[in-house]
């Protein structure tokens, strides 16, 4: 039953060695290492420890390709002449200097700018709270219908925007049923259209944040004596604050950027936004570099929105220690004095 031959195998390890051990026997000859097969690739490319040069080059080329046109548009907004393609010297006349045709003097531009900001503000004010309610509701909805509701919430994200715009137009202008008859094309329809698709983004952002937070903080609050409403108010909402900031800024960027829905819902010159203006005048012969200036404003505003959302999220992450972060973030938190 038991291998007799194995009996003494372990005895060597358990027997204590004598104090003065005899010199160790010479090490057995090492087996020669297998020959290294020479790589067919050149050294700098075949070297697995080398820097990822190709990746860097590709990335750099892509960034250049995507930024250069924007940069060109920005540069020509400072052109001294009327041309948007031939450089005639630096000036700020299309930004401010020209009393009639500059961005901030020509009523076509200023109206569009004001209307764009107006729509963005309304979209933010409506879509963010609405998205919050939907997200919290969806995350608590268990059982029948919750799966399809979750899926349907994502439909506006995937619907081609043109399809949605045309459908909304048909509904608002053709259907003679309340509440659609009450909605006239113009600002109201534009806001409703923008809210319709931007709510989905808010829901996605807030739901992912809710999933990251998990149910435990709310349970802890309930356990410590907070009612359902109090735990929402004192624990969940503060924890959702970064998502609130982020989604507000994203909604802002979406609204400022939107062309298709806003265009279809518009009614005349009063409801022209910057993207609509850009679209209408991009190829016009009479168009001045003031249009480039408007485009530049768009780029900056969107950049501020999205960049701000990123920074806010990162800052909150550091604050609550989610990203065990660099000392700069930690220091920023200490300096702000926590409360």
């Amino acid at each position: 039953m038991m291998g007799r031959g194995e009996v003494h195998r372990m005895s060597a390890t358990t027997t204590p060695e004598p104090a003065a051990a005899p010199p160790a026997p010479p090490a057995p000859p090492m087996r020669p290492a297998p020959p290294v097969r020479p790589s067919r690739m050149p050294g700098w490319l075949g070297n697995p420890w080398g820097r990822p040069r190709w990746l860097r080059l590709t990335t750099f080329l892509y960034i250049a390709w995507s930024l250069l046109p924007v940069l060109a548009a920005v540069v020509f907004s400072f052109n001294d002449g009327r041309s948007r393609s031939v450089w005639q010297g630096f000036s700020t006349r299309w930004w401010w200097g020209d009393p009639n045709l500059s961005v901030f003097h020509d009523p076509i531009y200023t109206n569009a700018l004001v209307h764009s900001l107006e729509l963005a503000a309304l979209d933010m004010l409506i879509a963010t709270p609405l998205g919050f309610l939907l997200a919290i509701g969806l995350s608590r909805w268990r059982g029948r219908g919750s799966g399809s509701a979750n899926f349907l919430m994502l439909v506006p994200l995937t619907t081609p925007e043109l399809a949605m715009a045309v459908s909304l137009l048909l509904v608002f202008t053709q259907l003679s049923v309340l509440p659609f008859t009450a909605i006239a094309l113009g600002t109201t329809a534009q806001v409703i259209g923008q809210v319709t698709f931007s709510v989905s983004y808010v829901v996605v952002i807030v739901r992912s944040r809710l999933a990251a937070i998990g149910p435990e903080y709310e349970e802890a609050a309930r356990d410590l004596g907070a009612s359902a409403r109090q735990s929402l108010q004192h624990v969940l909402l503060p924890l959702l604050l970064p998502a609130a900031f982020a989604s507000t800024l994203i909604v802002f960027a979406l609204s400022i950027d939107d062309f298709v829905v806003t265009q279809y819902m518009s009614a005349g010159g009063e409801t022209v936004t910057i993207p609509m203006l850009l679209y209408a005048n991009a190829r016009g012969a009479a168009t001045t570099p003031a249009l480039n200036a408007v485009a530049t404003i768009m780029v900056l505003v969107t950049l501020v929105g999205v960049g701000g959302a990123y920074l806010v999220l990162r800052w909150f992450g550091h604050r609550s220690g989610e990203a065990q972060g660099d000392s700069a973030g930690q220091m920023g938190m200490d300096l702000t004095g926590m409360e």
Partner: protein
Amino acid sequence: MEMTAQATTVPAIGGHGGEVRLQSLEKRFEDVVAVDSIDLHVGSGEFFSLLGPSGCGKTTTLRLIAGFERPTSGDVLLDGESLAAVPPDRRNVNTVFQSYALFPHLNVLDNVAFGMRYQKVGRKDRERRAREALELVELGDYAKRRPHQLSGGQQQRVALARALVLRPAVLLLDEPLGALDAKIRRQLRIELKALQEEVGTTFIFVTHDQEEALSMSDRIAVMHEGRVDQVGTPREIYEGPATLFVADFLGVANVMEVEVVGSGAAGCRVRVGDYELLAGCGDLGLTGSASVVVRPERLHVMARDQGGENCLPGMIDRTIFVGSNLQVMVRLATGALLQASVANDGVDLDSHEQGRPVSVHLPPDALRVLAPAGVTPAT
């Protein structure tokens, strides 16, 4: 933590120990029975552990007591009153979560003071009591820190202070030491037990770590597949396991399949292969096939020629040196492998080397007869 001296003078934490009774408590999730009709009584001021492997229903039981889940049937009584219609925020019961669930947007002091604002405690009293509670867990200097700036052990103490400052009748602890490393865990085990004795609150402690449960609890309920297999003091459960599962889950147990061949005043005689042994404890009324369990530390490994009554011949299969003792695996002539624990009191290692023929003495009072695997005893 040195909370011993202070806790008697400062009434910052602790309350009367509540008495908890679970009555035919059952919880189903869809088709899964998480808690299967449990009856338990936890006495006032007791340190009571729910011990079992993951998925045995111990955490669900805790959540039913806390009120996070509603029982499918049955009831939880606190000091004789039903909690069936009481939401979690109205129960005089607090929880220390496995992940601590310290609010990341509040500093340590505000975390500890959180619950008092719902108890109509004035702002000043809130802060004073929160500070006292933090002092008790030796974190007075950390009041203005954020939870994530504390170590795991410190976070755990904040969670304890946050719950105990509300003076609950019962404190529920869901694997509170699970996220800590081994050394801190051993230290906190002692401190937690001392704290519990000091404040007098009833502790219901959920763990899968048998050593934790044995070293801290007044009584333990061993749970298995949604049921309670056995309730008793640590010693009763370790030395007198009622089921094979309990014997196996608490420490190492040698299990042998035997045939009961007769019984007498001293115990019953069981047959293992060609040998007969006298077993002195367990379910001595069993007949037919049964299991016999014996703890490794109760076996005596002797030279082959020293054998006598209740001895089985075997051969050492392997010896593992673990410092304070030797784990000797003995292959019996019946084919079974027994693990024996031999105290390292200067024992001669050579006499336990591999392949040496030995005789294993199984004292009758260490041999416990249980219903064979798969058969639940009729208790």
